[in-house]
C-alpha cells in the first residue's frame, strides 16, 4: 500500500494506491474518487472481524459512524482519493503493535488489520474538557490515517505538556491526560478564555490541531439564516 498526502493543510486529500487484493478501511463518506476496479463493502465491524453491533454503537458514541467502508482492489494498480469531511489536515501514523487514542471523528482510514474501537475516557474529563466521553482507540499493526480541523502538528512529550481542549487530535497510549488549569489561578484561567486545559504526562507522541472547530462555528453561526 502506497500513499501520498496532497494539498496540506486545509484541503488535504489522501491518495492511496492499492495492489490487487489489498483493502483499506475508511470512514463513511470519505471517498472522493477512485479508479474503477474497486469494490466497497459496508459493515459495522472490522473487515473479517466479529461482534459488529456493539462496536458500531460504541463508535457512534465516540463521534464516528456506525458503519465502516472497506474498499478492496479487484484489479492491479488501483487508487482511491480520500478526504476529511471538513476543511483540515491528514496525517500518517503507522502502528507497530501499539495503540493510538484518537479524538472522535478524527479517524479517517486504516489498514484492515487495525481495530477501530471506542474507549471510555471518563466522565470528569468529558465534563471539564468539553471532549467526548468515548474516544476512538486504534490498535494493532499497520497504516493509520487521521484527519483534523486545522493543521496537525506533532509534539514529542517527555514530561508534561498542556493542550487547550478542542485542540487534541490523538495521542499514544503511553501518555496520560488530566484536566488542569491553564494559568496560576483558576479564575484567571477562565477569564483569560482558556479555562480548563488538558495536561499530558509521560512519554509519547501527541498530535494537536491548530484550530478549534467550535470557535469558528461560533463566529460564523450568527451570520447565518436561523434554522
Amino acid at each position, binding site marked *: 500500500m502506497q500513499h501520498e498526502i*496532497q*494539498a496540506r493543510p486545509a484541503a488535504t486529500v489522501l491518495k492511496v494506491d492499492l495492489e490487487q487484493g489489498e483493502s483499506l478501511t475508511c470512514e*463513511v463518506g470519505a471517498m472522493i474518487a477512485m479508479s474503477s476496479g474497486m469494490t*466497497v463493502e459496508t459493515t459495522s465491524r472490522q473487515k473479517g472481524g466479529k461482534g459488529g453491533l456493539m462496536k458500531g454503537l460504541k463508535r457512534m458514541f465516540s463521534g464516528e459512524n456506525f458503519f465502516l467502508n472497506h474498499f478492496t482492489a479487484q484489479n492491479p494498480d488501483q487508487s482511491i*482519493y480520500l478526504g476529511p469531511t471538513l476543511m483540515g489536515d491528514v496525517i500518517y501514523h503507522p502502528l507497530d503493535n501499539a495503540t493510538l487514542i484518537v479524538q472522535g471523528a478524527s479517524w479517517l482510514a486504516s489498514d484492515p488489520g487495525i481495530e477501530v474501537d471506542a474507549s471510555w475516557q471518563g466522565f470528569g474529563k468529558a465534563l471539564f474538557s468539553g471532549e467526548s466521553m468515548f474516544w476512538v482507540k486504534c490498535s494493532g499493526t499497520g497504516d493509520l490515517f487521521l484527519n483534523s480541523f486545522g493543521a496537525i502538528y506533532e509534539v514529542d512529550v517527555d514530561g508534561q505538556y498542556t493542550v487547550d481542549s478542542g485542540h487534541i487530535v490523538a495521542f499514544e497510549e503511553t501518555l496520560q491526560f488530566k484536566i488542569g488549569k491553564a494559568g496560576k489561578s483558576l479564575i484567571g484561567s477562565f477569564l483569560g478564555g482558556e479555562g480548563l486545559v488538558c495536561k499530558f504526562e509521560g512519554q509519547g507522541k501527541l498530535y494537536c490541531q491548530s484550530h478549534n472547530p467550535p470557535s469558528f462555528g461560533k463566529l460564523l453561526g450568527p451570520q447565518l439564516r436561523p434554522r
Partner: protein
Amino acid sequence: MSTADQMPSDVQFEITQRPDFGLLSVQLADGQQIFAEPAAMASMTPNAHMKAGMKGGFKKTLGRMLGGESLIINTFTAQQGAAEVTFAPGTPGDVLHYHLDQNTLLLQRGAFLAYTDGVELTGKWQGAKGFFSGEGLVLLKASGAGDIFFNSYGAILEVDVTDEFIVDTSYIVAFEDTLDYRVTILEGMKVSSKIKSFFFGGEGLVCKFSGQGKIWIQTRAVNPFLSWIYPFRPTKNNN
C-alpha cells in the same frame, strides 16, 4: 497540482493563495474587459469601471440561472489606462484557469467565477442523471474561445481520464465534454449492502466517467460543512 496554469491566456492574471483561499488578480489593459459573477470582486483600482447587467440574451441567462448562477453578470472595464481587479469566491477553496479553444467545459452549479470576452456561458440540461447525481438538473456549460476561471470548495485535483474513473457525486467541479458520465451504484456490492451503502454508507451513488479528457475534482464536499454548521445557526424565535 494542475497543468492548466501553463495554458495560453488572453488576459494577464495571477492566482495566489492556492489552494485554500485562491485569489485571482487580473491586470486589464486599457479598454480590456472581464466578466465576473456578482459579489466576487474583492478589490480594484479606481479606474476599473464596474457595470452590472444581463449577458447573452434570455435563453442563455435562463440556462445560467438553472445552473445555479445569478441573473446578473458584472462587467469590469479598464478605463484610462491599465487596471487591476482581484476576485475572491465566497467559498474557501481553489481557483483554476482554463483556456477554451472552441471546445466545451462543463461546470458544477455555482462553480463559475469569471471569464473573458469570447466565452459563452449557459446551462446544459442533464436530465435524470443530473437528478440522481445530486448536482441538479442543469450543469453550467462554457464554450467558445477565451479564458474561464472557476472555483471549488477545497483544493482541485486534476485527473486525466483515459478509460474509466469514479467520482463521488458531490466532488465534481468541472470536466471536458469529451468525457461522458453516468450515475451508477458501485460494482461488486451485494444487494443488501447496496441498500446499506446507499442509506448509511454515503458512497452508494457515484459518477462513472468514461472516454478521454480532463476532470477536476474538489477535495471537499459542501453538504458535510452545512450539517456541521447547522447547530451553530441561530434559532428562530417562535416561543
